[in-house]
């Protein structure tokens, strides 16, 4: 009787201990499987979300060309189908990388994409679409966070090999290898200071050349000394449907210059401000400017489209520290075809420079990063697509993470 009771007690104790142990072990196994499923679901969501963004133009379809807040988020170019992205919708995304710029004369803060001196895109926050609005429009507010990166596939880098005569080297690289034997078309602009006139003048030269087997092309401009005058070169490279753009500028004077701000997407209004009012600096002085606009035509050559003098000041003067009514000038870009606004400026006959601004993000192949910070997340799913933005090849990459707070095991 006693041995039977002891047998029962031992058996029950061992069984209970074993049950508790196995519950813990099975729980760990099940948790692993659940996390696997959740990660898998996040990865599927990333792919779906990226397609949702890229294959829908949003509501209204032309929201990228207006200043209204869309009621549906999408980046597709409404004039095309499939993975063709609107260069203007991308312009309206609030950049998550550049430091915002405050311009006291308008009292507005601007989203900033700057690629170097005189190569910037500044869009007022009031006209941009911010991350939280995008999350709400995509229906993932509180459940997922994302970061969307649009990067040009082809990198066209231009460097100065020699100043006199000016010799430039154009390097064309793709994501994986050089774009050998690519055809390169370029627009070369030489800026002259206020010689015999109140405003700077410029000459534009167009041409084409061919890259070698290493994706390198060389350009020589006989009779032009690169140290004497400011210049800017914009080059398009294309091969078998792959198109990229690059630019290089050299300015002889950069103490005072023009800062262009996008003012109105619908009317194409751009503000031209004095740099001292935006960034400060030493030796502020009055500058004169002369603006023009170039388009990329279908045969990959650049074409100058005169700006309208009636609706803005194509040429003018800017002084620093003026009252807001006289601090900046307006001009209007009367097209919603992607192009490049080129503003030459000068303080004197020998002190000149040039700044450029893309109208449509693709015309200067500016990269765009929009969304949250993925680096602080525990587990991030990524996916990518190859897309065309305004004729330029881009790679669209999404990083998506869950906000539901589960952990990584394994």
């Amino acid at each position, binding site marked *: 009787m006693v041995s039977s009771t002891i047998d029962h007690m031992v058996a029950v104790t061992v069984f209970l201990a074993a049950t508790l142990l196995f519950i813990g072990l099975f729980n760990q196994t099940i948790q692993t499987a659940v996390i696997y499923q959740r990660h898998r679901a996040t990865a599927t969501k990333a792919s779906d979300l990226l397609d949702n963004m890229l294959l829908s133009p949003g509501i209204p379809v032309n929201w990228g060309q207006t200043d209204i807040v869309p009621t549906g988020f999408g980046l597709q170019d409404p004039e095309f189908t499939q*993975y063709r992205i609107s260069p203007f919708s991308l312009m309206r995304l609030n950049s998550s990388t550049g430091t915002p710029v405050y311009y006291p004369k308008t009292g507005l803060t601007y989203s900033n994409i700057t690629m170097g001196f005189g190569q910037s895109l500044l869009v007022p926050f009031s006209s941009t679409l911010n991350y939280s609005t995008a999350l709400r429009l995509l229906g993932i507010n509180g459940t997922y966070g994302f970061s969307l990166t649009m990067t040009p596939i082809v990198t066209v880098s231009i460097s100065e090999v020699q100043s006199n005569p000016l010799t430039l080297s154009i390097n064309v690289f793709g*994501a994986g290898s050089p774009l050998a034997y690519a055809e390169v078309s370029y627009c070369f602009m030489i800026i002259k200071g206020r010689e015999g006139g109140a405003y700077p003048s410029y000459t534009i030269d167009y041409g084409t050349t061919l890259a070698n087997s290493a994706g390198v092309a060389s350009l020589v401009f006989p009779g032009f000394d690169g140290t004497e005058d400011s210049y800017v070169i914009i080059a398009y490279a294309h091969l078998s449907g792959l198109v990229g753009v690059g630019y290089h500028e050299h300015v002889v004077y950069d103490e005072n210059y023009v800062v262009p701000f996008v003012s109105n997407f619908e009317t194409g209004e751009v503000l031209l401000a004095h740099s001292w009012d935006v960034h400060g600096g030493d030796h502020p002085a009055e500058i004169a400017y002369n603006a023009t606009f170039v388009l990329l035509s279908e045969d990959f050559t650049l074409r100058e489209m005169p700006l309208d003098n009636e609706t803005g000041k194509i040429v003018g003067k800017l002084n620093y520290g003026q009252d807001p009514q006289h601090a900046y000038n307006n001009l209007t870009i009367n097209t919603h075809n992607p192009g490049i606004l080129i503003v030459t400026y000068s303080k004197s006959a020998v002190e000149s420079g040039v700044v450029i601004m893309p109208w449509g993000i693709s015309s200067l192949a500016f990269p765009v990063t929009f969304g949250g910070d993925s680096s602080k997340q525990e587990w991030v799913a*990524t996916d990518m697509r190859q897309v065309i933005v305004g004729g330029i090849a881009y790679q669209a990459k999404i990083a998506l993470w869950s906000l539901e707070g589960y952990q990584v095991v394994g």
Partner: protein
Amino acid sequence: MMRTIEVLIVIIIITGAFIAASFFAVLPWPRQVSPVNLRRLAFTTLQMLDSNYDLSRAAFETENYTIWGGLQIALSASLPPNVIYNLTVYEVTGETTQLYTFIDSMSNAESLGVTSDASSYMVASSNVTFNVVPEKIGEHSGGGGTLYILNCSDAPGWWITGYTAQSLAQDLYNLLSPYFSNTIMVQNTAQLGQILGNTSLQGETVQNAVVINTCGEAVPIPTAYCTTPYSNDGYAYYNWFLGQRVRQYNWTWASIVGYPFYYVSNIGYFTGQNDWGIYGMKAVYAAGLNSFLRGLNGQGYVTDTIGWITSELTSVPLSTDAIYYSNYYGIYPAPYQTATRALPVGITSAYNLAVTTSLFDPVSGYRAGAVYRNNVSGGFLALGLTRTPDIRLTALGLLADYKPRLYRSEYTAKGTSRIVVLQLGLVGGA
């Protein structure tokens, strides 16, 4: 002792179950949990390479090493370094036993590994002609069918910023000439004077014609009409006369942009400029349009007292009809336009006009673009949009109004289509 042994047996069984469950429920590698969607990447890569039909060209010229090699360079350059590929081209044979025949392939690796996926993309040969024969306007109605495009070299334009009247005329010719029995470029104002006098230029029928004014807000005026009475009230009388002629000849007059009949232009006669630096034109102001509408309505000439009648609508969407005909004729202007010179809907009752084609639906009592027809004779296409003009809208408005049919020929895919398969794999990493 028996109970303890039973419990031990149970523990052994559960342990076995746990080991078996653990064997299957392991966390996979990150690549398996969150794979790059290689199928979509392959598809979008093919689409991108064919964005200018370069892939289509290369798929049909695999023996051309320059083109085929260019495609391989572009493909290698477009994919990330850790992605390997195999691109294969097949001929669509249409045979019952074998649908696809291998043509050629390219690859940057011997094997695509265990993780790979593929997408296919159909391309058509550039030699394929999808023949479309348009019906000629006036072909069956027995009269008309003439398109006059005012390409007057001696008349400058206004509000056609970025273009010249001549470049617009050439684009219109390319777009619309297949739909008309005769397309005549009116090369100067003297020739305009001829057709205003019912004299044909090349033996065409003057009556029932369509006249497109490519000079924007300016209207060419022949030198012979630069005198009284046509010059009365700052040339408003000339515009009344044009309206009268449109009614008399049953023309359809097309104004491509801005405020119609705002200027008259003749570079040989007008020596002054229009206050904006354009020489060779004179402002008639709003009286030009009002006088034209009176002439079109068969009313006598009176000095205009109405003045400015248009309004700004900013962004206006294409009407449902316009979108339908946009798809039918394959003419795709931007779906939203900016209208700064929209005409009031009230002109229809004031001048006995009916809207036969509405490119934009009315907003707040104003219509941005439409074809108006008088209840007796004559028509008027007015596009009150802001510059820069989009002549696709002019073409769309006229085609939507005349509705010429398109006769499409049949074609076969055999020998004219190829399928391109891009298979992608990943190398390196976990």
